[in-house]
């Protein structure tokens, strides 16, 4: 009984249960009274007429006349008993009465007794004394009519009840249907489906208004929800940006600290290396050619050159861009030059391709540093493909507003360097720009290549990203701000 429809039906049933018996009793009472009226009026009039006739009869031959009158009364079929009481004497009809008279004189209400006879007596005044006319009218035909009428009333009321119940079921469905739809829509909204529109066609004004108010609420809820989701998304993006900036700031500070330290050491070391290299070369000129001394000195000079190269790398990593060497230059020739050098040194099983987009904007910076970037990246790439070989692909394009949080909006030159090498996992990717971080064996790499690349790109106000997957290769993207031509 918790649903609206069942409650409506319940109310209708209760109302019917209370009213139908009352209706039946009321209607049958009216019917009974009507039939009683139709019975009593003629009975009273007729008996009075007979009494009047008796009262008007002459004294002569009164008894035969009275007998004839009673015969006529009984032969009507409506009267089942008739007699005249004259003191102790009774005058009766020659036609036998249909019933034995009851021990009472008058009924004043139809159906007052259960013998189905309505008794009426009249005092008839005769010249010398009064006599009493007593008649009994048959109630049974009227009672049968009343019973039949009651049955018809009962059938009519039952039919009415059945019809009204059908109407009630239909009406409850009509009333409950929009509410059920509202409920289902509300359930969907409660389940998170805020796009479910509350629209239903109902002729009931209250339901229409309820639907309208709920729809307004839904739209407000949708608006609030969208605003919250947008704010949450913006907050998450802001938080991610903040974390990224914080991470990059920490990384930059760490790189800067390392760079400063390494730069200071390299500078001093370079000062130390200069006399070593100078005096070794002088000594090599004085040493007998081909002798053990010359061979040792040659090794010292080579080692000193390697040390100087390392020191130069450290200095390149640590120092800011030299503005005196910076200029607006075209990227493609620099890359072509670097690739020309690289093609001479990479193994034959490594293929290098370059797809420059026409009309790529120039950039501002030191071309030799970009040259070094290309060399370092390609060197890393072909070493990653050793010994199986593979393909190094370079693409040069222009992009607008790259999705890098550290870059300003504007036009950028994008250099992509991808290889088909063994790739890197996440733990390696997290440290590839750290100075002296290397995955190679001791003595095979300095761990400065990508650090130098990072330093150069950063000094050119650009950005670098690396995507890699173990077994699938690596993709490096370098964004450099386009300079006005």
């Amino acid at each position, binding site marked *: 009984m918790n649903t609206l429809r069942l409650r409506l039906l319940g109310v209708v049933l209760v109302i019917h249960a209370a009213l139908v018996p009352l209706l039946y009793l009321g209607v049958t009472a009216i019917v009974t009274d009507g039939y009683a*009226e139709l019975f*009593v*009026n003629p009975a*009273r*009039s007729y*008996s*009075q007429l007979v*009494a*009047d006739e008796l*009262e*008007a009869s002459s004294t002569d031959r009164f008894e035969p006349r009275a007998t004839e009158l009673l015969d006529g009364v009984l032969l009507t079929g409506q009267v089942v008993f008739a007699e005249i009481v004259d003191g102790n004497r009774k005058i009766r009809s020659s036609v036998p009465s249909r019933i034995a008279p009851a021990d009472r*004189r*008058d009924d*004043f*209400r139809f159906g007052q007794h259960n013998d189905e006879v309505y008794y*009426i*007596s*009249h*005092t*008839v*005044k005769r010249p010398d004394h*009064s006599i*009493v006319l007593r008649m009994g009218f048959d109630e049974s035909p009227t009672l049968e009519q009343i019973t039949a009428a009651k049955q018809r009333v009962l059938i009519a009321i039952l039919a009415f009840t059945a019809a009204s119940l059908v109407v009630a079921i239909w009406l409850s469905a009509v009333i409950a249907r929009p509410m059920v739809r509202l409920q289902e829509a509300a359930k969907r909204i409660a389940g998170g489906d805020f796009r479910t529109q509350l629209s239903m066609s109902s002729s009931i004004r209250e339901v229409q208004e309820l639907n309208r108010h709920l729809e307004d609420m839904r739209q407000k809820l949708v608006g609030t929800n969208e605003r919250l989701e947008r704010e949450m998304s913006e907050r998450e993006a802001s938080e991610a940006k903040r974390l990224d900036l914080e991470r990059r700031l920490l990384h930059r500070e760490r790189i800067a600290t390392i760079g400063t330290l390494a730069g200071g050491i390299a500078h001093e070391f370079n000062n130390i290396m200069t006399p070593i290299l100078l005096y070794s070369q002088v000594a090599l000129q004085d040493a007998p050619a081909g002798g053990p001394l010359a061979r040792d000195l040659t090794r010292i000079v080579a080692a000193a050159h390697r040390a100087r190269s390392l020191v130069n790398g450290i200095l390149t990593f640590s120092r800011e861009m030299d503005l005196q060497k910076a200029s607006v230059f075209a990227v493609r020739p620099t890359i072509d030059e670097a690739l020309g050098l690289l093609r001479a040194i990479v193994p034959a099983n490594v293929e290098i391709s370059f797809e420059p987009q026409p009309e790529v904007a120039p950039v501002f910076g030191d071309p030799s540093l970009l040259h070094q970037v290309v060399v370092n990246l390609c060197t890393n790439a072909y070493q990653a493909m050793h010994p199986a070989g593979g393909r190094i692909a370079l693409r040069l394009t222009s992009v607008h507003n790259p999705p890098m949080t550290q870059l300003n909006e504007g036009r950028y030159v994008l250099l992509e360097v991808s290889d088909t090498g063994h790739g890197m996992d996440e733990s390696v990717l997290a440290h590839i720009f750290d100075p002296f971080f290397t995955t190679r064996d001791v003595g095979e790499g300095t761990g400065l290549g990508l650090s130098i690349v990072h330093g150069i790109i950063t000094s050119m106000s650009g950005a670098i990203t690396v995507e890699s997957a173990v077994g699938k290769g690596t993709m490096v993207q370098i964004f450099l701000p386009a300079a006005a031509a």
Partner: protein
Amino acid sequence: MKRRAPQLVILLCLWAQVYAASHTLVLVVRADSKVTALDSLTVRKLFLGLPVLIDGTPLHPLRNRSDSQLDPIFLQQIVAMSQSAYDRQILIGVNRQGWLRPVEVNSGSRLIETLYADPSAVTFMWLQDVAHNPKVRVIRELWSD
């Protein structure tokens, strides 16, 4: 106890007489009324509001409603119809024919006063109420059980 037995018998006789009288309805007029006798048809006419003249004087019917037991007897024995038929007849008579509606009196004492005051008044009462009243005259018996 033996001394009181005749008294009890007398009281019982009186009670029986009273009981018998209470079940006889009679038509009455003032003692000096010119009305001496009315047949049942005339009585019916009178209480249906039809004008009934005695020596050129119209009679004034008074319907006695001081006792609820009188109503069914009045309807069945005097006007010989049901209450609704009687009401309908009175309405028709008053509105269409210009007859006068019988005056209805709800108090026995007021009925007697009205009867005393009007020599043309005709009403009906239980016989016991008028049996020893010299100012009232019984002109016929209407009903007895």
